[in-house]
């Protein structure tokens, strides 16, 4: 059942190694210990394409007032094991600054892998987003359509493992999903009542995606399936007459400032007990859109960088369209608002860099699904444990012991306009201390 997924342009081998070995995969191979010499390696990045995020470096200071604070607090020298990674994400409590992202409108997330991801994310109490046109494609699972691909099955798998007080499910809805009234369905369903009553249900308004900003979801369907959904999607025979397969496109939906603002208000009005999340594609006006979302009351804004996505996008878009994640994060100023960053996340350094650029948490998409594909019982748990191990090492090296303390002063390689300044823009006391360390 495993090993079927591939992810070109993604460090698949390293992710699978982490899914097998957990934190051990964050270190050099055990058999090399005391034999091989290390230093200046690009082990982590050599399987990955370089983007702006990769060129940034995390730069620990030498003088660490925050470490002194922690030392005083503990009464002993702090270690990486003293780093607390728990954080609030979009109204949920998560033990890690990580969220499991939805995986686009392909069939990848359907079926057993989607449920394996849900079970393991639930066990760790990490928030999970469900999208992927699950309801239009696979049904909700209430009346006879209860198969392993349904939305209800995914939510049930997650909830069955979920510890009290942690995690939560964000159910995505795009313009096409709105026809199926996904949110209304979930909001009035007995399966989700425990999530709703414990404040652990969110609805995520999807404005687009990193892999193809400006376009809607795309998938390949067989002609009969395409015909069945023709009223809802555009079906295009781009693959020629030699195949029954066709390109199916969803509309991206039309947004203006007013439309975005009002849709969020309407969500809050219609679903007062759900958290409201908004997912933005990496558009050039991302700062304006994120600002509108937060001002209208969104509990979280997910920034999907141009490096994000399942890879099912026109080739031209993958290489040439949309702002890179780092640029997106530099353009917005989340402040105390919750921003979730996604785009080729799979290990600790990229995650910590995103946190330093203002994200509250990062989304694992392809990595989570590859890990569950590698080992449906433990793969994602191992990957999460490995990420947590790395993030603890990194934060403690920066002399910081909670995720909220990380800031731009911890990064080297930012363009001058985005680099930290000696007078902090954000007057939080922690940032004030750190700003003194700015190189």
């Amino acid at each position, binding site marked *: 059942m495993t090993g079927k997924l591939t992810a070109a342009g993604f460090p698949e081998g390293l992710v699978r190694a982490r899914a097998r070995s957990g934190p051990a995969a964050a270190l050099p191979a055990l058999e090399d210990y005391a034999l091989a010499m290390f230093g200046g390696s690009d082990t982590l990045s050599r399987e990955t394409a370089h983007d702006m995020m990769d060129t940034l470096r995390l730069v620990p200071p030498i003088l660490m007032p925050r470490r002194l604070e922690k030392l005083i607090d503990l009464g002993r020298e702090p270690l990486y094991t003293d780093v607390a990674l728990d954080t609030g994400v979009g109204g949920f409590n998560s033990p890690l600054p990580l969220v499991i992202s939805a995986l686009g409108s392909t069939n990848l997330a359907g079926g057993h892998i989607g449920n394996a991801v849900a079970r393991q994310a639930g066990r760790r109490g990490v928030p999970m987003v469900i999208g992927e046109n699950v309801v239009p494609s696979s049904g909700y699972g209430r009346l006879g359509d209860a198969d392993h691909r349904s939305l209800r099955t995914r939510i049930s798998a997650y909830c069955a493992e979920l510890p009290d007080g942690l995690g939560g499910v964000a159910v995505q809805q795009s313009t096409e999903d*709105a*026809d199926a009234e996904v949110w*209304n369905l979930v909001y009035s369903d007995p399966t989700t009542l425990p999530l709703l009553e414990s404040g652990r249900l969110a609805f995520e308004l999807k404005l687009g995606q990193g892999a193809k900003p400006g376009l809607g979801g795309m998938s390949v369907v067989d002609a009969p399936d395409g015909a069945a959904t023709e009223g809802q999607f555009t079906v295009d025979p781009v693959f020629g007459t030699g195949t029954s397969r066709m390109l199916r496109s969803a509309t991206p939906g039309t947004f203006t400032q007013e*439309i975005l*603002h009002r*849709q969020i*208000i*309407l*969500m809050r*009005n219609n679903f007062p007990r759900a958290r409201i999340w908004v997912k933005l594609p990496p558009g050039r006006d991302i700062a304006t859109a994120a600002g509108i979302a937060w001002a209208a009351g969104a509990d979280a804004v997910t920034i999907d960088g141009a490096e994000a996505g399942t890879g099912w996008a026109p080739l031209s878009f993958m290489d040439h369209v949309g702002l890179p994640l780092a640029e997106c994060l530099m353009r917005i100023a989340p402040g105390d608002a919750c921003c979730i960053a996604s785009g080729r996340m799979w290990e600790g350094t990229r995650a910590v860099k995103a946190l330093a650029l203002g994200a509250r948490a990062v989304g694992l998409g392809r990595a989570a699904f590859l890990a569950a594909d590698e080992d449906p019982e433990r793969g994602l748990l191992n990957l999460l444990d490995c990420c947590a191990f790395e993030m603890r090492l990194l934060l403690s090296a920066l002399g910081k012991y909670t995720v909220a303390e990380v800031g731009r002063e911890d990064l080297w390689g930012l363009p001058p306009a985005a680099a930290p300044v000696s007078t902090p823009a954000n007057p939080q006391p922690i940032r004030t201390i750190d700003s003194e360390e700015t190189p």
Partner: protein
Amino acid sequence: MTLPPDPRTHLASGTTRAVLRIQHRILDTVRAHLTGLGFTELLPPIIGPVTDPGARGAKQVDVDYYGHRYKLMTSAILYKQAALFAFDKIFFIAPNIRLEPLETARTGRHLAEFHQIDVEVAGASRSDILELLESLISRVIEQTLHAEAAALGELGRDTAALGKALLSPFGRRTHGEAVDRLRQRGHDQSSDAEIDWQGEVLLAAEAEQPFLITDYPKGSRGFYDRESEQLPGFLRNFDLIAPEGYGELCSGSERENDYRKIVTRIRETGENPAKYEWYLKAAREGIPASAGFGIGLERLTRYIAGLDSVWQASAYPKVPGVPSP
């Protein structure tokens, strides 16, 4: 909160009989009053490719209509506007189905299946339609007090309290004023949203007479409520709230009939305008300006009869989430 008993027990009870007699009187009075004012009663549609999207949080019921996804009516609002192609003043006694959120099972004010007295008047303004609403409600109360004294007595209704509704014109306050009042009372009411159910009960418990809340913010209602030109961001709409803690009875508005504005407002509600093909075609060709309202029949019955729960005002009650005959 009690739940309905089995159909035999419910229908054979003296209480139910008294309630249904009152409900019959209400319907009879509504029909007589509106007919006397020149209205035509139409029979409403039950299914259609789209229905009212403005029902907060409730799920629509999908119907497989020869392979097309159709909906049972959550309300016939779009058809009320279309009915004005035939007559200037129309009304329906319309069945509605809304799979309400499960929490509404405990409000005493929600049914998954209910009926609405739906009224629409071409060329009417909000003040015209409010005048009509007030005259209709007053007439219904007056007639019920007069002709159903025995049934009201059987139910133990405080008729003096009910009679206060007739003493003076209904009061009015804006949504913003209602929000301020609730916040004064320590209730955390959003200024962007409809008055929540608990908030409505709090305001209703303070009142001795039915009163109106006007000018709801855009984003709290369906796309068909017209936005105010004088107060952008606010709607030319209203709710009628029953006193004595009974809460909302009726919603209504001046309607948007400008095609461009309708399409934009549909997007503001997150929907795909393509779903509304027939309606948008009509709007593009010109839909009459109008105003109208929908009164929840079972809620009105509950208020007039003084019932604990709205299900008592239905012969075949469907409490949200509760399997029922």
